[in-house]
């Protein structure tokens, strides 16, 4: 079997290796910054198209430099530190937001030839390496761990502001992010089932050998990943974190100037990384047909770019189309639909996989599996109905008890 390890770094580290690593990290860093700039412009332009307006049009051709102009403007804005803020944590929070956003992209394979059993190595200055910044053995778990850390940025930013809207926003945000992290994790578990490895590179290689995971795991985990990913990013329709009608700006209300810019940057960077991870896990990463042999190395990059763009477009499209969820609907969707569905689907796929290994006939296994899942689902919906009925009853009792004082107020 293939082991997760970048061949560049396996046999010792000399100067060339360090330089290549520096180059890769530097390129990824610059690429992310430029990509964020373009994605913000892309979102604004696309959404104004969908809303029948022009959008940014003045800075550069088609307004493409608008983000740059905004960023430079923010450097010249006064940076306020609210009197009631916790000074240390208030300053720390932007770092906790931006560093995971940058680092999470490290595990994404962006290029390399994976067709016809290729293992995606490219040669660079006479060394062979992967076209990804790093390939730690735990791969996707690295991404999950970083998204767990990213919760701190949001949570502490809101808490340290010493102001009510940020606090409410951050409590909501962190509860939302951890809720959907569970669904995200379960959807990813199904991918591990079919790929048998945690490393992103191995997952891409495995998909090019058989079929893309979106089919191998049967669409459902892909859908769950997409929904949970949108919620994890706090993107519309799950952007309760910054529901401006209720919470002003959400957790970063008190942040101004460049500190705000860093939160904004990391938000869009996370969007790019989430798209890239979705492409890696479900859509075969940079794999795709090599059309011409002359500049063969360009094609994987092109396919990767195309797939990521499809996701970015979807995120913007969702924002333009769907109204925001209410908080209870958000929690219900996460806990009562996505998590049980992801869990059930994981167990079904696992059972089918093991049954296929044992040589059991597929159809009866599927029938039994679906029946068991149906039983579990009806048990769960029964529990949901019971809880709702009890809550209604309790509220009615509460209304009876307060009826006396309430009607007294009405007459007065």
């Amino acid at each position, binding site marked *: 079997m293939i*082991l*997760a*390890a970048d061949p560049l770094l396996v046999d010792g580290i000399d100067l060339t290796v360090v330089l290549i690593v520096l180059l890769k990290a530097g390129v990824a860093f610059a690429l992310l910054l430029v990509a964020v700039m373009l994605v913000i412009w892309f979102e604004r332009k696309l959404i104004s198209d969908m809303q029948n307006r022009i959008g940014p049009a003045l800075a550069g051709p088609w307004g493409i430099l608008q983000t740059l102009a905004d960023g430079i403007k923010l450097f010249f804005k006064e940076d306020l530190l609210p009197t009631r803020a*916790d000074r*240390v*944590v208030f300053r*720390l929070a932007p770092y906790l937001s931006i560093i995971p956003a940058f680092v999470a992209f490290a595990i994404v394979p962006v290029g390399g030839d994976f067709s016809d059993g290729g293992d995606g190595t490219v040669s660079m200055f006479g060394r062979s390496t992967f076209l990804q910044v790093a390939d*730690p*053995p*735990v791969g996707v*778990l*690295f991404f*999950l*761990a970083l998204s*767990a*850390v990213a*919760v*701190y940025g949001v*949570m*502490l930013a809101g*808490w340290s502001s010493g102001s009510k809207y940020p*606090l*409410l926003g951050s*409590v*909501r945000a*962190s*509860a939302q992010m*951890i809720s959907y*992290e569970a669904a995200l994790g379960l959807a990813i578990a199904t991918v591990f089932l079919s790929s048998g*490895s*945690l*490393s992103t590179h191995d997952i891409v290689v495995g998909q090019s050998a058989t079929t893309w995971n979106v089919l191998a795991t049967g669409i459902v985990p892909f859908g769950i990943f997409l929904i949970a990913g949108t919620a994890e990013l706090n993107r519309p329709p799950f952007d309760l974190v910054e529901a401006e009608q*209720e919470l002003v700006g959400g957790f970063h209300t008190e942040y101004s100037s460049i500190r705000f810019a860093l939160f904004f940057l990391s938000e869009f960077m996370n969007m790019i990384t989430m798209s890239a991870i979705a492409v890696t896990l479900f859509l075969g990463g940079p794999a795709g047909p090599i059309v011409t042999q002359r500049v063969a190395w360009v094609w994987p990059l092109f396919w990767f770019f195309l797939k990521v763009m499809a996701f970015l477009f979807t995120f913007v499209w969702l924002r333009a189309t769907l109204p925001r969820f*209410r*908080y*209870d609907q958000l929690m219900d969707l996460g806990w009562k639909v996505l998590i049980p569905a992801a869990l059930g689907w994981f167990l079904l796929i696992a059972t089918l996989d093991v049954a296929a290994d044992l040589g059991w006939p597929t159809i009866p296994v599927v029938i039994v599996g679906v029946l068991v899942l149906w039983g579990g689902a009806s048990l769960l919906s029964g529990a949901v109905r019971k809880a709702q009925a009890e809550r209604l009853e*309790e509220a009615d009792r*509460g209304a009876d*008890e*307060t009826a006396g*004082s*309430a009607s007294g*107020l009405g007459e007065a």
Partner: protein
Amino acid sequence: MEVAVFIVSAVVVLSGALGVLLARNPVHAALFLVQTLFGVAVLFVLLDATFLAAVQVMVYAGAIVILFLFVIMLLGVDRADDLGIEPIAGQRPLAAVVGMSLAGLLATVLLVAVDGLTGAPAGTPIGDAGDNTRRLGEALFTDMVFAVELTAILLTVAVVGAVALARRLSGPMQPLPVVAIAEVDDDPDEATGDDS
């Protein structure tokens, strides 16, 4: 290289642990705890226990300390506590006794240990680091399967306990002051203004 990484992460771990003890603000203490947990994760990576390192960050930093922070925010204890009040009678002398005995135990182990402070070198690692998740999976679900199922029961108990603690009290409740009723009913949709 490895020694350097070890020293750096040990400093991170120890300074974080000291911070947990010395920070006056509970949120700062929780953050120092996160720092300690990160240092420990780096130590795990150093030992090629990569899965454990990721799990350390995901579960401890990503879930448990978040729970701590929720409790701190939930109860609004983010201002200076009155240290004069002892919620449990005699907890300070008790803590001193327990702490001293723990320190004594550690010292005894270190002094009695045959191979000195660093201990004997571990046996040669089985398999490669990239392989250790697989081996862990095999070990967990074959040899240690009983312990794993026990964990499931433990989690069930934890859930039951959480529900029992958070359950609404039955029986007649004190009526709210009239002003409070008007305010609560103002925004029934806002989840944080919830009536529980």
